């Protein structure tokens, strides 16, 4: 529907996933024991065989007045985001996901193999961050960008997800839906603002 939305796709083979980050999610400090390391390797292989990294991105005009932000498609009030966006006249808005493959596997593994499910879940979390980093890098090719900022951080309410996903037509394009309590499905999905410096 909405016109200026760009669809991006990636490959797990090239997306950089931080092992360190996955270990941090697992609460592991120091070098992981061999059995744990093996589980991480298996998580990587399992994800690479099941993920379909996709993202939608839209460039939005931005008008700010104090802590009020107007992105054209929606408005909000947030001190934290206004600070992040200070000086930007435009912002990217994107939604990124690993797709339904890992989502279904997570459901299954939690019933069949809880310990691996935990490791796989952490690996997926690190992977969607990695995918966001790649989306960010692609957007940064011609622009200088601010650090990305997601709904739910600081004083930006999670309820903003409704407007964000609608502005990106993310349900139709990526299949991301929202529960009444603002959970995204697939759960390994991220939405974010990325301010364009000097715009």
């Amino acid at each position, binding site marked *: *529907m*909405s*016109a*200026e*939305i*760009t*669809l991006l796709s990636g490959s797990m083979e090239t997306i950089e996933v931080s092992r360190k980050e996955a270990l941090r999610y*697992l*609460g*592991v*400090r120091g070098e*992981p*024991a061999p*059995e*744990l390391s093996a*589980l991480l390797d298996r998580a990587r292989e399992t994800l690479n065989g099941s993920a*379909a990294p996709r993202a939608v991105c839209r460039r939005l005009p931005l008008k700010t007045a104090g802590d009020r932000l107007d992105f*054209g*498609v*929606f408005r909000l009030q947030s001190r934290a985001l206004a600070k992040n966006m200070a000086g930007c006249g435009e912002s990217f808005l994107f939604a990124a996901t690993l*797709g*339904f*493959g890992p*989502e*279904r596997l*997570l*459901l*299954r593994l*939690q*019933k*069949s*193999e*809880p*310990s691996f*499910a*935990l*490791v796989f*879940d952490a690996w997926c979390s690190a992977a969607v961050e990695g995918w966001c980093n790649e989306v960010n890098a692609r957007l940064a090719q011609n622009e200088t960008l601010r650090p990305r900022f997601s709904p739910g951080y600081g004083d930006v309410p*999670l309820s903003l997800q409704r407007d964000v996903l*609608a*502005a990106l037509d993310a*349900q*139709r394009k*990526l*299949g991301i*839906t929202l*529960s*009444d*309590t*603002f*959970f995204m*499905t*697939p*759960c390994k999905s991220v939405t974010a603002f990325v301010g364009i410096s000097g715009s």
Partner: protein
Amino acid sequence: MTITERLRICRTYFDGGMGTLLQKEGLRAGELPETWNLTHPSVLEEIHLAYMEAGANVITSNTFGANRLKLNNLDLVIRAAYDNMARAKARFGGNSDDVYLAFDMGPLGKLLRPLGDFPFEDAVDVFAESVRVAAACGFDLILIETMSDLYETKAAVLAAKENCDLPVIVTNAYDESGHLLTGADVPAAVAVLEGLGVAALGANCSLGPQQMKDIAAQYVQCASLPVVINPNAGLPQVKDGKTVFDVDADGFAACMRDIAKTGVCGLGGCCGTTPDYIRKTVAATRGLPFVPPEEKHDTVVASYTHAVSLCGVPKLIGERINPTGKKKLQAALRAHDLGYLVREAIAQQEAGAQILDVNVGLGGLDEAALLPETVEELQSVVDLPLQIDTVRPAALERALRVYNGKPLINSVNAKEESLATVLPLARKYGGVLIALTIGEDGIPATAEGRCALAKKIVDRAAACGIDKKDIVVDPLCMAVSADDNAARVTLEAIRLIRETLGVGTCLGVSNVSFALPERQDINAAFLAMALQSGLSCAIMNPCSDEMMRAYRCFCMLQGFDPHCESYISFAQTHPRTAAVSAAAPTQPADDGNALPPLMYAVAKGLQKQAAQTAKTLLQTEEPLSLINEQIVPALNLVGERFRQGSLFLPQLLMSAEAAAAAFDTVSAKLPQADGKKGTILLATVQGDVHDIGKNIVKVLLQSYGYAVLDLGKDVPPQRVLEAAKETGTKLVGLSALMTTTLDAMAETVKLLKKELPGVFVMVGGAVLTQEYADLIGADGYSKDAMGAVALADRFFACNET
């Protein structure tokens, strides 16, 4: 002529995009396009008229999102949408008899359970409300489109079928890989929708005509119904700050010409297409000869991801989820432990089953509630088609409703009562029927007698509108120990039924060996004989090594296994000398101290080894001493290391799983009451769809010997209360992941405390703190899973009687 007739005899054109045209007329971002039916009636009228003049036969209403979740003046909007079309049709100078007005329904914007949080019946209800309004307006058909989830598609079709008599056409939205977003492929969609009795089906949106060619070809290849293809005008691209689609009207029409040649009956457009695209498509394809849809004769069932054909290579139907003669499964069903059924399902899939039988009929249980619940639970984790197995029509109907796919229905027989109740259900919901050759006088003694009953069922089904391709006959096999000719007659019946009726056959293979020694050998031989007689599917235990060997060998020898690849890989992973060496008496531990073998396996998280070692040790040791001297100490050792930070949550869980496996083996040798230390009810609160934390707590509690009743995720307060009341559970654990669901937790605690003051409620989850737990009146709080075990230990120690 109805649209259903028209689609079968001549090429039918659908209209094109609506959104882009409305945007051109000034529709603002964020504005609901449906409201324009009321505010800009003449704009809509002109667009509809332009499509009629371009040559479209099917004109779709501007009601993509017209449902009560998005609009509160549904009635007015849908009526206005119809009026706008009717005015255009009245003004249309061409043959208005050849214009059909379609009520358009798009997705709800909600993801259905189990992936999402929206209940299936609620979706049916929301669609139904829109359908009822539309039916009163005078539309000619319902067009369900841009559906990217097969389950939601089924909900919409059921709503349409149950609330009006209009023909229903369905087009789904695929990604480049040829799958719907939630995983279904084209053969699965075709199987499900043809089963539900739609008038035509196909694909729209997401892709341009070029990328849609392959999907169109797949549809034509497996559908018996007319196929409709409505692509986008290519992919959207930004040029000079404006979005354009990369395929122009001429390029679009050229692609659509190719698509028409392959046998697609309905052609139209979606996003980015305009009346010009349709006009050029009509011009480019008008002269082509019409290719009518071709009837397909494959017998096909489907899950929510893929279809399985019962023709060609014989299929294996896993029989393990059936309580008859299975004590553990019976106990699990009585304890409502659906997790046990899920594990059975996964084990059968891994062993090579392609379809799973599901039977939960057990005296004293409410099968009409339990069967649909089990189907949903299995479908949350296993993507195999299911065979719904029940003798109760109420249970069958409820399971058929919620089943996501096209199931096998087990079963109908030749008795009047069965024919009268089961055939209409199969007709309504779709499915492949298993027809048992049982008549009013029982099972005929001869192959001819059984074939006659099969013919009766096939004829009666045909009269009911069910094609014989949707029937598989089970000629039944009695125990050869009771009748020397039992197997021979059955084999003869398989051949006779296949040859004279042209239908597939299936058979519960294991009955034959009843009351005989070394049953697996008999079963394996009989399986090979039945397959050689032409059996299409065997209902059997795929975990039986002997039977799987027979099956793999048969497939290879029959030429179903190119280059013997499947056989070789099976043989390599299933060596005949698979004797597991007994565990060594002691194993070295990390810190240099020797640990007893079971303790070692549990501490290292070696699940299979733990179960095997426990089994070996049970020959010489007391079960209780194994629990107290090895399993529990191992868990304590691991728990201690976890607390010290020298070992982490995944390892703790691995040990817990190994302990649970060992415990399972050991507790089978214990008198029932000694097996469990106490029962705990767990739930993730309403609104929370992430329950990995709760699942970790569950595994740990189980490994420490507690029985856990897991209510799952997104559980309403009332449901927790009811479960606690029904089971008399004294300890309830609740989890919540995010701040948005803390209120639901507070409400649940409040309700429990009010109605059941004696119940101890412990809470946990990422955002919870001791302070918040105190604030909402919880009795206990734990920051991690080990803490939950400690709370449970303390609770049951204090409350022991």
